């Protein structure tokens, strides 16, 4: 059998960034704005965090990690403003601006690597995040805190209810005195901050530098986790755990004797296939926020 206990720390390491990004994507979609830019936001967060950490490591040992993570979040937040402005202020097609960010993010990240480090990736940092007594990275606990925070905000706070109403029926929300555009802006920016945090978490635990293959579809896996988890915090957490496990197994399966009979790409494909299958399976039921993807125009009914 597979020794899951010994794999657990590395599985949770992979789950954390996917979960954080997926929760951000969920908040944005709950407010009615699709965010297919998670991949790009994670990329820009990962690049910024790695760069800041590499540059500050010799100067501010101990603090550079924290500053790196914070700057990754800020970078993700700033990038998401492009998406927010296009899709909320200008009522643009939300898929188009998301695609633009995905293209732009990897371009800017690698371009700046070439300028700063004279290669197509950042230099390697000495030490990334370190594990605690349980063998877990701090990102696991961060993901847990974000999960609880998002759940508490969305389902236990009035502001969370208002945010969700913007994604269900923005016209009714506006009639009830809610500033739909402002809440949608906040939701998209939160997904940007969390996307950046996810990218930073990924690069500082799973690798030693940022390169254009660092994210490698994990932002899209996070996007899949939102639909697979049926737009609920618990569901998304379950989906992210399943998908993260799959990603971890895809990497470590070569060392597991019992899994050698499978094609090596088997676990890489699992998240994507499962997502399509569940979308088909639950196609009749409305789990998605009702106004998802629709721009909010005043005066429309």
């Amino acid at each position: 059998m597979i020794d899951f206990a010994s794999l657990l720390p590395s599985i949770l390491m992979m789950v954390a960034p996917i979960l954080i990004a997926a929760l951000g994507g969920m908040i944005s979609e709950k407010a009615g704005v699709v965010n297919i830019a998670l991949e790009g936001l994670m990329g820009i967060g990962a690049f910024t965090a790695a760069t800041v950490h590499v540059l500050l490591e010799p100067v501010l040992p101990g603090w550079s990690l924290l500053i790196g993570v914070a700057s990754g979040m800020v970078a993700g937040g700033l990038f998401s403003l492009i998406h927010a402005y296009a899709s909320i202020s200008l009522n643009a097609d939300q898929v188009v601006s998301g695609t633009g960010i995905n293209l732009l993010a990897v371009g800017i990240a690698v371009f700046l690597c070439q300028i700063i480090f004279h290669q197509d990736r950042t230099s390697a940092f000495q030490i990334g995040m370190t594990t605690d007594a349980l063998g877990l990275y701090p990102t696991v606990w961060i993901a847990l805190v974000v999960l609880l925070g998002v759940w508490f905000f969305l389902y236990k706070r009035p502001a969370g209810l208002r945010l969700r109403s913007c994604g269900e029926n923005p016209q009714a929300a506006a009639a009830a005195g809610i500033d739909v555009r402002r809440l949608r802006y906040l939701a998209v920016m939160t997904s940007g901050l969390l996307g950046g945090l996810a990218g930073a978490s990924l690069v500082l635990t799973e690798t030693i530098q940022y390169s254009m293959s660092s994210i490698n579809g994990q932002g899209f896996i996070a996007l899949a986790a939102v639909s697979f988890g049926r737009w609920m915090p618990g569901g998304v957490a379950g989906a992210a755990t399943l998908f993260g496990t799959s990603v971890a197994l895809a990497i470590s399966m070569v060392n597991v004797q019992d899994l050698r009979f499978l094609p090596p790409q088997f676990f890489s494909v699992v998240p994507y296939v499962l997502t399509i299958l569940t979308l088909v399976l639950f196609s009749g039921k409305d789990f998605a926020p009702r106004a998802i993807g629709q721009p909010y125009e005043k005066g429309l009914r």
Partner: protein
Amino acid sequence: MPDKALPPKEKFDLIDLFTRSNGAVSLLVIALGFVFGSLFILLVGRDPVNMFSALLQVVTGWDSSRGVWNARYIGEWFVASMPLVLCGLSMAFAARTGLFNIGAEGQYIAGLTAAQFVALLFPPIPGLHWLVCVLAGLLAGAAWGGIAGWLKAKYTVSEVVTTIMLNYIALYVSQWLTHAFAPGANTYRTKAYPATSLLANPWIEDLTNGSRLGNGLWFMLLSVLVFWFIIDRTRLGFSLRATGFNKEAARASGIKVQSAITTSMVISGAFAGLAGVIVSMGSFSYGRVLPGMENYGFNGIAVALVGNVTAIGSLLAGLLFGMLNSAQPLMQSREIPKEITWIIFGLVVVFISFRNGFKLLADWRAKQRTKS
């Protein structure tokens, strides 16, 4: 009738121009993309002139720094443009039916993989072999696109999500199939293709001083024609466009909306599949275990949007982006990081997403006028 509602034209008006003319918006976003790209290069202390001289060299073949002319650059420009034009057509065709096909990348991979296997396994009959490769690629791309279309038509599953998922499924399945089953495969390539499977054309090769441009060119041009013909000249194209404009109205007037959605994705996927064949049989002499996404599909989204989802627009935009792509090595040798081209692609798409601003501006101005 919207023209009559507008106040009479007094003078040339920019906002009017940009709300009415798609072509004007395309030129504007391209110009903005290059302006911001150049500013970005300046910002990091490099000289944007180097980027433009590289682009000039790609388009004309004239190397201004050494004073020599080499037609190979022009050939390679077309080599870089062909898959972009085809993936642009793929995205654009689906968009005319109101579908957002982010899956050209996966359909491209499906086409490429099928063609690779046919090239290596089909008997090397001159004249027939490469044709079967092209057909296999077309069919595989069409099937991969058709899956997303069918799921949308039958189960109302968002094609945006399924095509993204299918991209990665295609990549990993292609890696597995090629590595495990293709003749002579190691971790990154197969054995060489038989010459009968290649799209090489000695005449074009001669004309372009030994570039990799070959018979793929005819297929690309034919595809542009086919796109235009289906969309603008056939009953099928009409029903596809009607579905894109207003699904309910189309349904009410007797158009089979569900089959229109599937058909549209099938044809859309065929374009991208053809791109896969042209890259594999045109630019390579052996099958590959793809290390990752090749990004033609994603860049095709930019191509289609800049080309206003038309046949001729995708052709022109594809040539523009192909020019940027094929200038990458020249830029790199002139101290401009080649990723500037991705930045310009991204900027162009971002600016396109801002275009609705012109409409909002026009609405606002009309309101101001009625007030005063």
